[in-house]
């Protein structure tokens, strides 16, 4: 297992790039600090402490209310941006992005891609770590310089000198470790898992495995949402078919970009026209092979629009993709170079048949001639 970890600032802080370089504390009044910028660290502010205490320690900081919805959007954005770089991707609000690049043929390209995309999404150079598991990769990233990658070959050797407070334990458990004299991960690794389990419960066993670099935790793979849509509302109701085609093409382009980021394809396509008066008109189809490019999407949707006879002027155009196929096809390419396969050509032929009719594609089949007859060919 090889895991790359990209470490950035907390995603709550990424919502306000205008405040980069200044002390910022995110949290609600009478609650705990959700996130604090690096500039508040010298004042002793840490996430999890009471906001009143943080204000007392660093009164000059800018206080920002958390926005869980916006943070979730940023997390989804980063996840989808990283999704085609590795088969398993996990992004957390704390500003941690993991990519499991085990088996990826072009791991270097994936790491470089992750660096660029995190920089673009967050606006700050991420720290990168490459190690055999998520825990050691995160610690390696935390020790890398901004924009640089720290590689770890042997996780146990790397972890041994690090303080034991890096373990994901609560304050009380960390204090007990300190009382037991286990102040480095090396000392935690040297005792048996059962011994620490008897002291800290199940968490103790996990802590020993982590300290030994055995990485008991697996990444929780991000999965793209299985629905997507795009729409355009017209200022003035539209009657012109060309205008509708133009907008349809643009929406297909947007959807194709999004599908490309997710590495997904549409198995079900629905077009809805909101008309000036009356119920909306809808047309939908399930496609045998998923559509992912703008040309494929517009090929189908454009043909519908060209023959559509709406009852009234159109006020809004919706293109919905209610069923998206997983990114298997796209991700498989991470292991294989080159383009084109017999299966893809067959899929392309079937897509053409779906759109233009079965009779568009045919294969000449020979019929063995009876004596005295000439050879015949039939279409199948």
């Amino acid at each position, binding site marked *: 297992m090889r895991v790359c970890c990209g470490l950035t600032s907390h995603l709550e802080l990424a919502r306000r790039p205008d405040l980069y370089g200044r002390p910022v504390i995110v949290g609600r009044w009478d609650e705990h600090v959700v996130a604090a910028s690096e500039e508040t660290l010298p004042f002793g502010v840490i996430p999890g402490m009471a906001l009143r205490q943080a204000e007392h320690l660093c009164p000059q900081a800018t206080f920002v209310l958390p926005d869980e919805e916006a943070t979730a959007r940023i997390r989804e954005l980063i996840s989808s941006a990283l999704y085609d770089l590795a088969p398993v991707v996990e992004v957390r609000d704390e500003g941690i992005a993991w990519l499991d690049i085990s088996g990826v043929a072009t791991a270097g390209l994936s790491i470089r891609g992750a660096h660029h995309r995190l920089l673009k999404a967050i606006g700050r150079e991420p720290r990168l770590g490459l190690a055999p598991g998520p825990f050691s990769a995160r610690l390696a990233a935390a020790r890398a310089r901004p924009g640089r990658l720290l590689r770890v070959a042997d996780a146990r050797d790397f972890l041994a000198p690090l303080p034991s407070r890096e373990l994901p334990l609560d304050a009380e458990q960390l204090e007990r470790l300190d009382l037991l004299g286990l102040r480095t991960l090396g000392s935690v690794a040297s005792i048996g898992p059962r011994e620490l389990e008897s002291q800290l419960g199940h968490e103790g066993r996990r802590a020993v495995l982590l300290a030994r670099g055995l990485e008991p935790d697996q990444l929780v793979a991000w999965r793209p949402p299985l629905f997507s849509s795009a729409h355009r509302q017209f200022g003035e109701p539209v009657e012109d078919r060309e205008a509708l085609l133009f907008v349809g093409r643009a929406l297909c382009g947007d959807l194709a970009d999004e599908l490309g980021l997710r590495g997904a394809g549409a198995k079900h396509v629905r077009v809805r026209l909101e008309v000036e008066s009356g119920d909306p008109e809808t047309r939908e189809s399930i496609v045998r092979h998923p559509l992912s490019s703008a040309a494929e999407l517009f*090929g189908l949707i454009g043909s519908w629009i060209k023959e559509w006879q709406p009852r009234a002027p159109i006020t809004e155009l919706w293109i919905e993709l209610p069923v998206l196929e997983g990114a298997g096809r796209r991700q498989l390419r991470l292991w294989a170079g080159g383009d084109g396969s017999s299966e*893809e*050509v067959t899929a*392309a032929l079937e897509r053409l048949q779906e759109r*233009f009719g079965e009779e*568009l594609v*045919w*294969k000449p*089949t020979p019929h063995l*001639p009876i004596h005295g007859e000439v050879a015949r060919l039939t279409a199948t």
Partner: protein
Amino acid sequence: MQAEKLELAIDSIRVRFGSQALTLAAELPPPQPWSSRTPVDRLTGIAGLPRGRLALFTGNGTCGKLTLALALLANATHEFAHAIVIDGGGFDPLTLLPFSPELGALTVVSAPAPEIAGEAAAALARAGAGFLLLMCDLPEHWLGPLESGANRSGTVLVAVVDAPDRALAHASSFSLGFSRRDWIWERGQMVGLRVSARCVKNRVAPPLGEAELEIRYPLGNRQLSDYHASVAEVPSPVEELLQCASAVV
């Protein structure tokens, strides 16, 4: 002076955007050839039809361009998993039988309109079909996707048209113009034709002039699969003279 300025500009682009930002055409790797085992291989200059590029066979009337394309198609059915004909209405698979094709690999797309033909060609080139024979006009806006798709997948593209429009001529990397020289008569029966194939455009290698081809039609009332048709190159008079001269010397 101008050359110095140009060199300076090239250097500054390379410093700013990297050494690969600008490449001399002569330094570009040539496209990979697909050896068709026909006389066309010699004319392309790379010992085969260029993969991922569009080759164009043109000529008015009966001049052998389609027969040669069918010979290529038949060879392609033996070498590729998918040899596909994009047909605008003139393709008869029976005419392919004398060339002994592997029919399992052959697929025909009967496109009722150029728009559909264009879309089908672009989609199949992108998907990685081994060989595409285009027997109809393609709209100009599909030529770009077709070129880029074929370029990525290495599809061999051959188009057969009487007279190409400007866009198609521009999109092609290799263009062969055919003209009929004379008919071949044997025992009072017309058995084929002699044509001149001239390279009128070549973006993959220096143009190599022309060749004279002899195209034999299938004859007799035997079963079609037994007919023997062929496309063979015949030495030009100049080459014959040179051979005679070398023999004398």
